[in-house]
Structures are given as C-alpha cells and as structure tokens.
C-alpha cells in the first residue's frame, strides 16, 4: 500500500469515535490472527446498546476475575463478590440501570457452581425492542400459520416450514440475529398445557 493510502486510512481512523476505534482494532486483530471474518457481522447488534460497557469489559476483564462489576458506560461503579453488593453501590451513586456482570473463570468459585442449580450471571443486559415486530405479527401472523418467521426491523425477513432454512435465508439477507416466531393460527384451539 502506498504511503499516501496508509496516511489516508490513519487519518480516517482518527476521526472515529473511541468505540468505533476499538471495534476497528478488534476487526484488524481478527484479520491478522486469521479468525473467522464473518464474526463481526454476526455480532448481535443489540450489544451496540451497551457498546461502551462491553468495550470496558474486553479491556479490563482480567483485573476483576471472579467478581461482579457494575458499569455505567465506561465507568466502573462498583466491583465485589456479590450482585447485591455491586447493585447497592451502583444505586447509591444514582444509577438504576447499571450493567452488572459476573466475570468468571473456569477455575473460579462461581464457575464451580455450574450444574448445581441455575444462577444469575448478568443484569440489565441489552435486549432488542421487538414492539415493531409484534405490531407486524398482530396484522399478519395468521397469514403464515404453521410456518417459521424471521422478523427484524419491524418486518418479515424470511419464512418457511424449516427454521434452519428460514434462519439461513435471513442471514444471507444481512439479518444474522432475527426474532424467530412459529406462527399460530387464530383458529387454533385454546391451549390447555402439554
């Protein structure tokens, strides 16, 4: 690559936000390490809602192993041994919706509890707002009764009788993490349990 082209890339990089720079560096690292090039594409876009928190976690994970952390953007509000502890400290700082995550290692005490009962591992994690998809379903679900639907951006992306094929089609169209629904019919009998 000519020196001028490199300078142009560097100049454009400098104009990115800190989050975008981290993402760009992550992608470059991936490419240099030869890892799957599609990984960045399939990263759920819901995580963008907490991009600063997840960037912080990527950078500082090793410093807080086997602890709970509470984050507000890239600000560490609290860390400690229990969810109750970090929640109290986050709320004391006036943050009600901090992302609270257990950073665990395979050797750590929390991880050893796996399989011995369900447990909470994170609170306030991002989830997509699917109200537009539900609006669409109210109008159209009956037209596709018995089929799998992949919805995103408030619209139907793909549909069919095989979830695998519906998912593959959605991915091909640029929607790797759609909302899957198996469409019901208004004529179905009321449900009484299995």
């Amino acid at each position: 690559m000519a020196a001028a082209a490199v300078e142009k890339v560097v100049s454009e990089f400098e104009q990115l936000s800190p989050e975008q720079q981290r993402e760009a560096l992550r992608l470059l690292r991936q490419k240099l390490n030869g890892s799957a090039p599609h990984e960045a594409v399939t990263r759920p876009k819901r995580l963008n809602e907490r991009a600063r928190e997840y960037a912080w976690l990527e950078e500082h994970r090793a410093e807080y192993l086997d602890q709970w952390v509470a984050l507000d953007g890239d600000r560490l509000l609290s860390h400690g041994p229990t969810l109750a502890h970090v929640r109290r400290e986050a709320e004391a700082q006036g943050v009600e919706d901090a992302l609270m995550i257990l950073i665990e290692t395979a050797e750590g005490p929390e991880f050893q509890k796996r399989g011995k009962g369900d447990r909470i591992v994170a609170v306030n994690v991002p989830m997509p707002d699917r109200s537009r998809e539900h609006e669409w379903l109210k109008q159209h679900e009956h037209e596709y009764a018995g089929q799998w639907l992949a919805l995103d951006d408030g619209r139907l992306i793909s549909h069919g009788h095989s979830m695998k094929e519906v998912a593959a089609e959605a991915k091909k169209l640029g929607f790797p993490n759609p909302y899957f629904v198996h469409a019901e019919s208004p004529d179905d009998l009321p449900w009484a349990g299995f």
Partner: protein
Amino acid sequence: MSFQLTFSRRHKYEETDSGIPLNVILQFGGSEVECAAKVDPGAQFCLFRREVAEQLGIDVEAGIKQNLRTLNGSLVAYGHDVKLITLKVELDSYVCFAKDYGLPRNLLGRIGWLRRIRLAIIDYDQELYLSDYNAQD
C-alpha cells in the same frame, strides 16, 4: 396483613395473545437465538423446540434425558446448560429441548427460569413484573 413487593421491570402483553409470551434469547457456545416463549409456572422445566437447539448448534441427544409428563401422555426431552435472557436478566440455565420436531410452543418453567426470578402477573391488565432473584441479598 398486606405485602408489598418491588420489581425492576414491567412488561405489557396483549389481551389477544395466546398465553403470556416473553421474548427470550438463548445462547450456547458462540451462537444465540431470539424467540418467543410462554410463561408457564405449572411446568417443572423450561422446554424449547428441537429446532431452536439445532439452530444453536446443540447436539440434542447429548444432553440429560428427561421423560416429561404431559396432559395426554409423555414426551422425551434432553437437558442442556445454556444462557437464557428474559427482560434483561441473564441466567445460566438448565433447559430441556424436545427430542421430536414440532413442539407446539416454548415454555418458561420453574427449573431454569422461575426459581431465579421474582415474578408477578396481573393478567387483568396484561402486565407482568419481573426482577432477578438474588439469593445473596
């Protein structure tokens, strides 16, 4: 005597919905699937369609075999450890996946979900309230 509970999240559902639906994200390995499931406090386990497991890359039969009793007989499912997210609360959960294709619906039952959350339902208003259950409070 009266009792008061507080919750961190409120979810509205539709009167026309069949059952009480929640959006669920299931994660396994590097994959995740977002789908709909019905709240079912009468179910002992969380039970999901086989198709969902396959989409997550789970080898269904490699799990723990569970024979489950139903209203009109029984069905076979296999239990797996997955991550389950509902209303922004993420759990390490034990979830069963049906052996056969075509399970009519996904269920959020006690083990794997209900026993790690606090839940209130006011069906008259189509409102569901939820918080994580913090055993270490």
